[in-house]
């Protein structure tokens, strides 16, 4: 196998050192490329987000559909007891309000379990795939990156919330359907950083930002054009917003898939050169 280091040696120490540096960087890049699997998680979470769209009307607390539920526990209690908490707490629901449908409650609550579980499944697949290929991903890197990303996103959110003087303990810590979906944004950002994939990292940031914008409507920022329209059109409603979240992930998945294959090919070229 021809080596840039050897050929470089014929032209002096500078070329040799540069050749070795380039070769080392090529090996590292190619090894990372062998582990690239972010497009799978983007695709998986994109499909999950698509599956969530039909439930969005009943579950999202974006304010766009005229309801203003502040707390998932309160909602859960109301659903289980059949008492409405929307127009007047403790009285039966009016038509179109939450009306004690246990299935709706389950459809909502399932994402709290399903989203973290999906990451666990992905992590396991990632590890097994690495073992099969002979290169096992670094666990410490993942742990560190996830911790840093979670801290960064949480800090940014807290800053935004405090900056807007929002009742954040009510609207975010308890809030409903939106908060568990941050698991996707944070996870993808961590994955993107670990894999050196700016597409995945950007998708994670966009996803988290979009959720924050959706939550922002509840904070009364007023800059979200979709909030509480007088005559809701389809594009003003929660379905469109849920679809937008899914679209971000699916578009990123196809872009990352193409980039991963390009990296794998160019990585092979780098080492062989």
């Amino acid at each position, binding site marked *: *196998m021809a*080596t840039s*280091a*050897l050929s470089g*040696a014929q032209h002096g*120490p*500078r070329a*040799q*050192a*540069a050749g*070795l*540096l380039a*070769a*080392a*960087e090529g*090996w*590292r890049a*190619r*090894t*990372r490329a*062998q*582990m690239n699997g972010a497009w799978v998680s983007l695709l998986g979470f994109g499909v999950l987000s698509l599956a969530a769209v039909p439930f969005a009307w009943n579950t999202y607390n974006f304010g766009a559909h005229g309801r203003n539920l502040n707390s998932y526990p309160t909602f859960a209690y109301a659903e289980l007891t059949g008492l409405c908490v929307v127009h007047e707490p403790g009285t039966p629901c009016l038509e179109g309000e939450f009306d004690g449908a246990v299935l709706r409650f389950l459809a909502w609550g399932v994402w709290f379990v399903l989203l973290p579980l999906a990451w666990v499944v992905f992590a396991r697949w990632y590890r097994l795939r*690495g*073992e099969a*290929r*002979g*290169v*096992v*991903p*670094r*666990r*410490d890197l993942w742990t560190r990156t996830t911790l840093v990303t979670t801290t960064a996103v949480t800090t940014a959110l807290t800053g935004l919330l405090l900056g807007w003087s929002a009742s954040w303990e009510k609207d975010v810590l308890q809030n409903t359907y939106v908060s568990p979906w941050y698991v996707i944004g944070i996870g993808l950002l961590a994955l993107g950083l670990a894999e050196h994939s700016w597409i995945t990292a950007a998708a994670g940031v966009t996803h988290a930002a979009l959720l924050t914008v959706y939550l922002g409507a509840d904070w009364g920022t007023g800059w979200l054009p979709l909030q509480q329209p007088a005559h809701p059109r389809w594009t003003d409603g929660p379905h469109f917003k849920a679809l937008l979240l899914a679209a971000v992930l699916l578009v990123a998945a196809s872009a990352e898939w193409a980039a991963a294959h390009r990296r794998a090919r160019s990585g092979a070229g780098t*080492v062989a050169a």
Partner: protein
Amino acid sequence: MSTGDATTVRDGQEEELHPTRSLDDTVHQRVRLGVLAIAREADRVEFGFLKRELGVTDGNLSRHLKVLEESTLITVEKGYAGRRPRTWITLTREGAQALETELRALRELVRRLDGT
């Protein structure tokens, strides 16, 4: 192999090129540098993966791994996947430091030579 070339670098310009003093023959050798660079990106890598990536023979790679293991820059663990024997290589803390030192020295060397 490039060990001789590395010595040339070291012997020829040791006084003038300070970064060469940080170059360690154990790490500077091309295949061994490749093993460390690849292992740096993973928890552990398999013998066959290294062989493929570095384009070397079984015997050649084994000799280089032995040198690295004796220098405590890597650990070698043998096991099985089903009936198939597999050898896993893990970078040690010393190995990671040695790799960083080597890469830093190479970058500094290139920078200095570019300036002359």
